[in-house]
């Protein structure tokens, strides 16, 4: 029984890290710009498709049709030769193998551009508009983004293999000096956990210890005054939006081996990330992280047969149930400030 609970706890931490990472960008945008961004899920999805695109570029093949041979369904046989391996040899093979983490290289600039363009093009005009309208315009943008992706990549999930060295499960029990082969956990999930930790830590450090972060925090507290001091707060906020897009994008990239991305993956995470943010308290970064872990762990435990035997169907609703209870008991979530988003 101990192993089961320990494993479930570990899994909860892992899920929680993923939730926290997804919610982080959302709460960053809300905290700095005061914009409720329903397109956040779409940014996650665009990030995931950066990985898909990168791999498709890497695995381009030359196709020659060999009319002398026939395929079993009666068509001339197509002979395929991979290009990247042909050009770069072993390095190419390694690159293809590590395509998912490597695609972060292209994801960061792409997402930065997408984020800044979005903010300058549309979101900027919505700072003064009601939250309901912000929700609606970003929701519309999310629909457009996902439909565009659908028309280019098709409606089906596109599996992204993880690097061969990181496949399979790690024997965590053995590391901790317990019996071998009892507590094992997929290596890639551990990688994702570490990755989420690093990104979350970096964002906190950036806001806390850099001048840029200090100005942004000051702007969050009192935008007008900071503006009067002669600081171009608008430009900084634009950069913050780009940063949030990058965080969402790389979260999407690293998630692809766990869940083959399709055009709809963003919407699936959108509701979840909103619940996390609201439970944590709108605009509170520590709140989002804490709520992510809380929901991840609770969801993990609610899925155990023993728990489900007590309350049937609990695993289906636990996330929403926790959200309802927390919001009814703590009006502004775990760490929310008064007066935020209540009108």
């Amino acid at each position, binding site marked *: 029984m101990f192993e089961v609970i320990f494993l479930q706890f570990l899994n909860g931490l892992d899920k929680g890290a993923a939730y926290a990472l997804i919610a982080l960008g959302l709460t960053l945008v809300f905290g700095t710009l005061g914009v409720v961004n329903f397109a956040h899920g779409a940014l996650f999805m665009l990030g995931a498709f950066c990985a898909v695109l990168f791999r498709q570029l890497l695995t381009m093949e030359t196709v020659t049709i060999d009319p002398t041979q026939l395929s*079993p*369904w*009666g068509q001339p046989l197509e002979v395929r030769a991979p290009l990247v391996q042909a050009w770069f040899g072993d390095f190419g093979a390694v690159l293809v193998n590590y395509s998912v983490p490597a695609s972060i290289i292209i994801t960061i600039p792409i997402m930065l551009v997408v984020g800044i363009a979005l903010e300058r093009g549309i979101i900027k005009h919505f700072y003064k508009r009601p939250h309901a309208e912000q929700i609606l315009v970003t929701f519309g943008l999310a629909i457009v983004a996902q439909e565009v992706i659908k028309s280019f990549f098709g409606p089906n999930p596109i599996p992204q*293999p993880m690097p061969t060295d990181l496949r399979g499960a790690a024997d965590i029990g053995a590391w901790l000096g317990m019996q071998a082969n009892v507590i094992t956990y997929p290596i890639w999930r551990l990688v994702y956990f570490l990755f989420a930790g690093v990104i979350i830590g970096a964002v906190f450090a950036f806001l806390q210890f850099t001048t840029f972060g200090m100005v942004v925090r000051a702007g969050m507290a009192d935008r007008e005054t900071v503006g009067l001091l002669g600081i171009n707060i608008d430009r900084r906020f634009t950069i913050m939006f780009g940063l949030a897009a990058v965080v969402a994008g790389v979260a999407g990239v690293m998630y692809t081996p766990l869940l*083959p991305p399709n055009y709809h993956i963003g919407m699936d995470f959108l509701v979840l990330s909103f619940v996390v943010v609201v439970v944590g308290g709108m605009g509170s970064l520590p709140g989002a992280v804490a709520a992510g872990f809380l929901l991840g762990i609770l969801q993990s435990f609610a899925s155990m047969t023993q728990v489900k035997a007590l309350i049937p169907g609990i695993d289906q609703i636990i996330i929403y149930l926790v959200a309802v209870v927390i919001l009814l008991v703590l009006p502004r979530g775990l760490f929310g400030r008064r007066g935020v988003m209540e009108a």
Partner: protein
Amino acid sequence: MTLLKRGLSRRRVLQTGMAGIIGTGIAPMVFTKGAWAQEFCNNPTGDTVTIGLNLPLTGAYAEEGADEQKAYELAIAHLNGEGDGGLISVLTPTALTGKGILGKKVAFVTSDSQTKSDVARAGATRMIERDGAIMITGGSSSGEAIAVQGLCQELGVIFMAGLTHSNDTTGKDKRRYGFRHFFNAYQSGIGLGPILGQEYGTDRRAYHLTADYTWGWTQEESMKAATEALGWQTAEAVRTPLGAADFSQYLTPVLNSGADVLILNHYGNDMVNSLTQAIQFGMRDREANGKTFEIVVPLFSELMAKGAGENIKGIFGTSNWHWNLQDPGSIAFTKSFGAAYGSPPSQAAHTAYVQTLLYADAVERAGTFYPPEVIKALEGHEFDGMGNGRTLYRAEDHQCMKSILVVRGNENPTSEYDVLNVVQEVDREATTYDPAIFGGDLGPAEPVPLCA
């Protein structure tokens, strides 16, 4: 505008014009008495006959839907005497002429069902009411199939089900106007059981992860029955929410549960995700109870196998049909489909194609489109040459009795389509069961309801 497909028929103008004038009060009585009597719904009067294709072009089963659509278009072309004629020449007995159905050219309309029962019904209604479809076919989930088949019974239109695997479609929810060529979960159990016993022994403990809705439940039940008959034990059967995406919290308890086989009663994207994640958990590298841990996916298609990539290698499951079968029917269909679309057909495409031909053949044999006569022609009809051996459309539940396949993920695929190996063809005698075990009531064929 070009949107208006059928133009203003005299009947429509009368109907709508009158309706507008009469208003709410009297209207109900006028129309339901069938004042403009057609002897049955959408009796084709011109020189074409329209078939309604209700396909999931978006949503979880979109890939199956797209493949089905190709097959329908191919079948319709063949019925109209275009292309190479496909399976028309190998169907025995056959009444098909290659000149349409009863001399009328076959046309079709499509609707995206989005893999949702509600939308599927709305689409079917539209095709029947507006486009005048004489028959509805398609669907890629059991919920959809059952919902649409109920509607067709109400309106008096024949429904030829596409890919639907639940026992309920021809069991407790069977309908007089609904017909299914695809096999069902119960037959999967019958087919897969003996092979599992042979490969994995009779002393195994199975852990089920089951999609928490009706199809999942029927398959779990059928698989439990089949494996427990072998002497296996069931360690646990856990229900997972549909579309859970991340199954990790359901997979962790499997590791130390004492089970040594994991049975995934998932389909579509859920199956791709849960299988991929199970393999990431190292399940296939484990040992439990001194045996290698195994994973079984009772129903899979080559499209799902493609989605799961190399994770599918060596995994057992069942299929209705596979393109590399070597009987004349399968060869002819694969060749014809490959020539048209450059890839081999999936099992969904096969069942779609065969259903279209069978309907056309039944109409030809009945000599009329009048649904009760067509139903009579289909019920108890026995035919051969469509790739599943001698097949019977059973009168009691409208389920086809035919051979099915036990398949295994190919370890050394030669192409992206060569993902499955056929391990065994389970013949019709073995997969036949007593229709009474699932209950249900077909309902009457007559009087024929009149649609709008």
